[in-house]
């Protein structure tokens, strides 16, 4: 997907004017936050589990090479094969080669952010293979030709009416010409339409929430069961996952699973949590004949040992999105690339560069809620500040803002001059604020005054009054 993060202001403007999007975002805000709170309150050990999850991930990252080697050893022992993709191009080519070897025309897909990251679908299509998204949200945005807007609910920006329109447009050629309006009916139609696609695909591609080194297992977490149909029915099952998904043992995966579903949707466990190890065994009546895991690096090995290492603990729960006031205002597409929300503000610059992505870590008031709800205790604001430091050194900020900051800093280091000039400035602003005690507009501050008044200063600084009081007392 071509990033549009550099056009952030335009994206934001469009998002704020989109009333359907705003309605959808309001729904997300209300729903996910209360569910998470309820789930967390109901589990007394939640904070302790968070701490354990952090320790598990940190330990794994400190030994990442060794755990990946063990993972590969165990996948191979179970009859599967691991492929190592340093770049998105490598990952795409490996998967294409596997699909061509399997002679498949269509590929069913479970939800995978990594597949989005490497832009797998357009590449497969270019080579005559049709990817079929099976997660309902992914299916909807596939029809709409849009990227996902939320890490666990890709189509939450869509209204039911928009889904009805998409279905009647795209399903007509399948003989389904009635425009459905009830949610149940839309879900049923999607199920009907996708069922034959599951059965005809010779390759199924899933992501992985976890890769388990102890057993060579990939784990997926869904509510629909689409990932399960995707990985059970075809002859070849391909898992695409990034390096940092590996955890040591089944017990370690179990611990992190406890904080994952609760943080994401407030569930204790998602409806289907499935552990897949290798292809079918000799006596299994069904299951794939081949099991492949494509491990993607794409810069993650470089994040290790850097000031951004902690983002590698992310388990893609979406809690940070759900509690972010910026995301709640603009939605996922405005961020301009695959990963949005607070984790996207940290991860995206590592992949598309801070030059293009500098608005993302900048467009936040640093309320800190993301870090507060992150099950993996990732210090998201701290890492956004690291990006801001890099952006500052590269002078990526607008000239006007850099000069204003320079002026402020220069004055702040000269207290006597600061007092004199600030005294004058507040006298002026207080005067401008008459008679109401507030200003409706102020040069260089349109960002504020376009929608808010600016309360006027009282007129004399505290420093001046305090100095006078002290002079009066001596």
């Amino acid at each position, binding site marked *: 997907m071509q990033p549009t993060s550099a056009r952030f202001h335009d994206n934001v403007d469009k998002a704020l004017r989109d009333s359907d999007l705003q309605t959808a975002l309001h729904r997300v805000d209300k729903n996910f936050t209360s569910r998470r709170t309820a789930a967390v309150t109901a589990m007394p050990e939640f904070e302790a589990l968070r701490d354990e999850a952090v320790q598990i991930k940190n330990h794994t990252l400190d030994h990442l090479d060794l755990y990946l080697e063990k993972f590969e050893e165990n996948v191979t022992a179970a009859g599967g094969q691991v492929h190592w993709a340093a770049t998105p191009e490598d990952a795409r080519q490996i998967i294409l080669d596997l699909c061509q070897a399997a002679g498949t025309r269509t590929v069913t897909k479970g939800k995978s952010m990594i597949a989005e990251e490497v832009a797998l679908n357009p590449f497969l299509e270019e080579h005559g293979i049709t990817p079929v998204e099976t997660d309902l949200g992914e299916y909807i945005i596939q029809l709409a030709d849009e990227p996902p807007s939320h890490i666990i609910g890709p189509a939450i920006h869509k209204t039911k009416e928009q889904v009805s329109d998409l279905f009647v447009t795209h399903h007509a050629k399948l003989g389904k010409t009635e425009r459905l309006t009830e949610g149940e009916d839309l879900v049923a139609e999607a199920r009907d339409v996708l069922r034959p696609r599951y059965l005809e695909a010779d390759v199924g591609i899933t992501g992985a929430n976890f890769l388990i080194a102890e057993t060579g297992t990939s784990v997926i977490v869904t509510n629909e069961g689409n990932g399960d149909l995707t990985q059970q029915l075809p002859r070849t099952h391909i898992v695409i996952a990034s390096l940092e998904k590996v955890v040591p043992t089944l017990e370690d995966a179990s611990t992190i699973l406890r904080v994952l579903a609760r943080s994401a949707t407030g569930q204790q466990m998602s409806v289907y949590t499935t552990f897949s190890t290798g292809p079918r065994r000799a006596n299994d009546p069904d299951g794939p004949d081949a099991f492949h895991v494509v491990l993607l690096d794409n810069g993650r090995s470089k994040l290790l040992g850097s000031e951004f290492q902690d983002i590698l603990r992310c388990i893609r729960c979406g809690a940070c999105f759900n509690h972010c006031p910026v995301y709640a205002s603009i939605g996922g597409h405005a961020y301009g690339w695959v990963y949005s929300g607070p984790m996207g503000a940290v991860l995206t610059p590592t992949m598309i560069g801070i030059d293009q992505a500098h608005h993302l870590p900048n467009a936040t008031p640093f309320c800190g809620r993301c870090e507060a709800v992150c099950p993996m205790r990732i210090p998201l604001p701290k890492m956004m500040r690291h990006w801001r430091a890099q952006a500052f050194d590269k002078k990526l900020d607008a000239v006007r803002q850099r000069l204003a900051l320079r002026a402020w800093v220069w004055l702040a280091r000269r207290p006597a001059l600061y007092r004199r000039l600030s005294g004058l400035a507040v006298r002026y602003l207080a005067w401008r604020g*008459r008679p109401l005690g507030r200003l409706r507009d102020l040069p260089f501050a349109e960002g504020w005054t376009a929608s808010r008044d600016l309360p006027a200063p009282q007129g004399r600084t*505290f420093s001046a009054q305090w100095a006078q009081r002290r002079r009066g007392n001596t």
Partner: protein
Amino acid sequence: MNAGPRVGLFVTCLVDLFRPSVGFAAVKLLEDAGCSVEVPTAQTCCGQPAYNAGDRRDARAIAENVLRAFEGFEYVVAPSGSCAGMIKQHYPQLFADDPVLGPAAQALAARTWELTGFLVDVLKVSGLTARYDGTVAYHDSCSSLREMNVRDQPRALLAQFEGVELADISDGEACCGFGGTFAVKYGDISAQIVGKKAANVVRTGADTLVAGDLGCLFNIAGKLKRDGATMKVRHAAEILAGMTDDPPIGEA
């Protein structure tokens, strides 16, 4: 002069420039509780604008100035969760690699308090004698909540008043959208966020909005006034010190 703890008041640039009455209210509260209060004149800014802009070098220079100015005080108190948080949480990080200033920053951080947190957790103030008649909606600033562990303390102080009724703001932990320069740089997003906060504040039916941070207060008040709301907006210190003669924020 009081014989109690020796407190250095960190005025904050917003109080200094925009609303000095908050500073005087803070001094009164501290002196009434037995502290001797001084206001080092070398202070200007806590350095947060530079720090948040990624200008670590200037942030350190300003912070160094603060470290020096506030040497020797038993406590440093600010009528702001944001500035107190900058000193307490971020100064140690700014100087983490400095063998001299690192320990100095840790030491200052350990002595730095937000005003209401200080009054309750350290001075154990009770029996405030001021009176305020009205329903108060209390807004928690993000920095108070998440950097200074302040939430119950201002409510405990207000509860000591006769005549005050406290109202809960729905989705109370949500940000007001100020975020310093964010409010101007990304003003449209900030406006969207403060719009939600203002609507929740108005929905409480309270006649007064109170908070411990002027940034939040100016932001929400600015939105309320633009929308024509009649709610009064004040800093917690003004109410607690019984100093409500000055017009509320954004009024004359």
